[in-house]
């Protein structure tokens, strides 16, 4: 029953429900916080597929809006409510830790200014991933594959990209790094397509994309994985 309702919610998110069905879905969502949470997560996943900014994922003002409008909404208990938001918020916190103790110990008022925060954190992240150690480790990751480093780009979003080309077959691939706290490390190691790069400045999520085989991607990730070193 609930699965069928969730399927309708999924269709509603795509604008594929009849007016009658929309009414039914709203009645159900109103009384079932799990369904409301499902809608929220679907929106997050749909946003994740697009290339628009996701905005402030860790903020939730829906209950405030409802209160101000004199409405009530059925939310899940605080413990389980907005799990994904909580998770995202946690990742956010971990990212802050990664960006360096200097900023983490700065006055709490800094947190209230995202643009200043952005600048400061980005500087720290860039310092970390542009270290010679990171480049060296990347080279180790593609060792034995006769891959040539084509370009490096660190951008201002705290990410780092290295483009490689395999001259023998012309194939190209990209290795990208995103900062991640060490606490996430063992949790994420289950994935075969993502690995980690540890530098003196922190741990980075590493992923490989491009027109190379999955085996090759996995080999690169395996080489990068320094957890046990």
């Amino acid at each position: 029953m609930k699965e069928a309702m969730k399927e309708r919610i999924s269709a509603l998110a795509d604008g594929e429900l009849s007016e009658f069905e929309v009414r039914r879905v709203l009645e159900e969502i109103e009384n079932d916080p799990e369904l409301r949470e499902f809608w929220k997560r679907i929106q997050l996943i749909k946003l994740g597929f697009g290339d628009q900014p996701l905005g402030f994922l860790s903020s939730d003002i829906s209950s405030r809006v409802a209160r101000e409008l004199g409405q009530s909404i059925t939310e899940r208990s605080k413990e389980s409510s907005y799990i994904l938001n909580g998770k995202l918020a946690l990742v956010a916190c971990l990212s802050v830790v990664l960006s360096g103790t200097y900023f983490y110990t700065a006055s709490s008022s800094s947190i209230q200014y995202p643009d200043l925060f952005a600048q400061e954190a980005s500087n720290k992240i860039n310092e970390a991933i542009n270290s010679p150690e990171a480049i060296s480790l990347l080279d180790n990751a593609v060792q034995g594959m006769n891959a040539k480093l084509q370009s490096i780009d660190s951008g201002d979003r705290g990410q780092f990209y290295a483009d490689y080309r395999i001259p023998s077959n012309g194939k190209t691939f990209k290795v990208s790094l995103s900062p991640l706290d060490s606490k996430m490390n063992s949790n994420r190691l289950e994935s075969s397509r993502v690995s980690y790069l540890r530098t003196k400045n922190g741990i980075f999520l590493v992923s490989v994309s491009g027109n190379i085989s999955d085996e090759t991607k996995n080999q690169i990730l395996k080489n990068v994985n320094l957890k046990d070193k």
Partner: protein
Amino acid sequence: MANKDRDSDLALVRRVKKGEYAAFDLLVLKYQSRAIAIATKYVKDLHLAEDIAQESFFKAYKSINTFREESAFYTWLYRITANTAINYLSSKKRKSELLESDLSNREGEAIDIFDIPGGESPEDILNANFLREEILINLGKLPEEIRTAVTLREFEGLSYEEIANIIDCPLGTVRSRIFRGRELLQETISQTMDIKKIGNN
């Protein structure tokens, strides 16, 4: 895809106009993060941006009957949020000017709250990158028929009917596969980002 998104919003807007707050709540859940991001283009403080977004949703709800459905709901909400933020800044500027004229009689000096580049904080950008990476990785792991349906929907923006024609199956099957794909993506992403797991580790 934008048209279908618009259809989805309009279906909810019409329910809001009939007095169903649950429909508006879904729109808030859908757009709140972006409304806050709009507000941060004008104000630096995240909490203030949340207040502005909250007020914007309040105004949107109160004036929903003036929304003539000629534009997308998001476009309409964007304007409301931007205007709310601008009004806030104007009010702050007036206060600031009064204060400054009292103190030093200076005129026309911009207060530092103006012209601040907006957008997400780095942690939100990282979250977004992380989320997108996870979605793409896990999309590749979905069973082929599910992956095809989700890809045609999310990347090509096709309607369920168009997808049904392409993959030659009933419309209900398309709906079911897309739902299943999203459910699987949700599950794997949630597992990856599970707080309890992290805590235990």
